[in-house]
């Protein structure tokens, strides 16, 4: 037997074993999730996606601006600062920050900001789920949210030992407070929502997605947790982005509607994100 055949035999699965998987329920669900996401920043519209609305408003109890989590694109750039904790590249009109310390202090981060001329930026660390893998960050000024993005895709290829990365505008004027997520301590409330079904979270391992509201509520109550509702309105009238309506009273929720996710601030309340049924009436502005 030649070595290629030996290696082939070791494959867990071959492509031909996966015939028809492209039309499975899992493939359909992933496709539906992806096309709701925003595309490249250059193609963004001013109206944020449901996810971004969620993040921004979810953080509103703590922050005035929006938080950002997620990947973005990597481009060529030039290093302008490096310490043990932070490396900064200048990339056009942005600075790319690469964090190489799992537990950076606000002072270290402020020093990095100041070193590149952003000397009126202060830094605050905010508690996020320890399961959160992406950099969670934001500013207290909504105008600075524009253009800020996470740059994780090639993080460790760019800077050895890079754990997380993000980009901010290079021309920040005036005072601004920068927020960066840090793992919450046991029992500490989050300043940024987490998926409640992640390991270690309130509904760890519980499948909520796709259940009816009635079923989901029963599951949540079984865990002695409270329920709050949000509605994810799909894009209407040819629009690109859907809208997320928050703090929706239970009286407006049809128990037969489907739940798309369950999220938590680790505060004993599970936020059910619900997809309204086809006959639901949109409130003004949605």
């Amino acid at each position, binding site marked *: *037997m030649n*070595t*290629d055949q*030996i*290696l*082939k*035999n*070791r*494959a*867990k*699965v*071959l*492509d031909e*074993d*996966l*015939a028809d*998987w*492209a*039309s*499975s*329920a*899992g*493939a359909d*669900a*992933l*496709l539906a*999730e*992806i*096309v709701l*996401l*925003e*595309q*490249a920043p250059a193609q963004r519209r001013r109206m944020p996606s449901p996810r971004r609305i969620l993040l921004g408003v979810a953080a509103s109890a703590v922050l005035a601006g929006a938080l950002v989590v*997620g*990947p*973005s*694109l990597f481009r060529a750039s030039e290093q302008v600062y490096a310490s043990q904790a932070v490396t900064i590249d200048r990339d056009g009109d942005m600075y790319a920050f690469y964090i190489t310390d799992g537990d950076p202090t606000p002072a270290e981060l402020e020093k990095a900001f100041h070193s590149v001329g952003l000397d009126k930026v202060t830094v605050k660390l905010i508690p996020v789920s320890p399961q959160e*893998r*992406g950099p969670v960050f934001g500013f207290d000024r909504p105008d600075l949210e524009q253009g800020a993005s996470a740059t*994780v*895709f*090639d*993080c*460790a*290829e760019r800077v050895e030992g890079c*754990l*997380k990365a993000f980009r901010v505008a290079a021309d920040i004027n005036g005072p601004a407070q920068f927020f960066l997520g840090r793992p919450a301590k046991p029992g500490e409330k989050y300043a940024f929502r987490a*998926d409640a*079904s992640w390991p270690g979270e309130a509904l760890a391992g519980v*499948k909520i*997605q*796709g259940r009816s509201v009635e079923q989901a509520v029963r599951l949540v109550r079984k865990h002695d947790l409270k329920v709050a509702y949000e509605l994810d309105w799909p894009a209407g009238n040819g629009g*690109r982005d859907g809208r997320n309506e928050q703090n929706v009273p239970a009286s407006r929720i049809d128990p037969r509607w489907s739940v*798309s*996710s369950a999220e938590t601030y680790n505060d004993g309340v599970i936020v059910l994100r619900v997809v309204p049924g086809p006959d639901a009436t949109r409130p003004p502005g949605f």
Partner: protein
Amino acid sequence: MDETDDRTRFEAVYRRTYEQILGYATRRCSCAEDAADVVAETYVIAWRRMAELPHGDAGRLWLYGVARRVLANHRRGERRRATRHAELTAEAEILFPPPSPLGGPDEVGRAMDMLSDDDRELLTLAVWEELDPGQIAEVLGCSRNAARTRLHRARKRFTKALQQIRPSARLETRPLLEKESR
């Protein structure tokens, strides 16, 4: 290209390549959750970079390149979760059957472990994804000649590693999937 065109094209590429990208991730990940994460993140990047996604079969090779970088980041602990993909994770469980208690030593795996990451990637792209040197060159971003030469050397090193571990190679059978064994 407007939104409708983007979505139509993305869906076409997604449906055409999904099984291959799922296969790529499954063969290289140790659990369903990791494989689902790699598939999901690969397509999230493709969606966000539609303008760069080549047409035709070059799109599939481009996706392998993205999946490769996603997997490398994943192995460094940088798990991305732009999507939930819970159903995909649940479905993929069937591709990761529990190890057989009767299984012998993983000699092929040990031989692969003796190779460099580059050699492993070259060999597996050639054998598991059945790519030729020109296609491998596209995925890895090197010249066709370089891919051909490096693949030849990787094969030699793999053969040598196998001989060191088990001088008389015997037939290895691929473990049956649960759905295959019914």
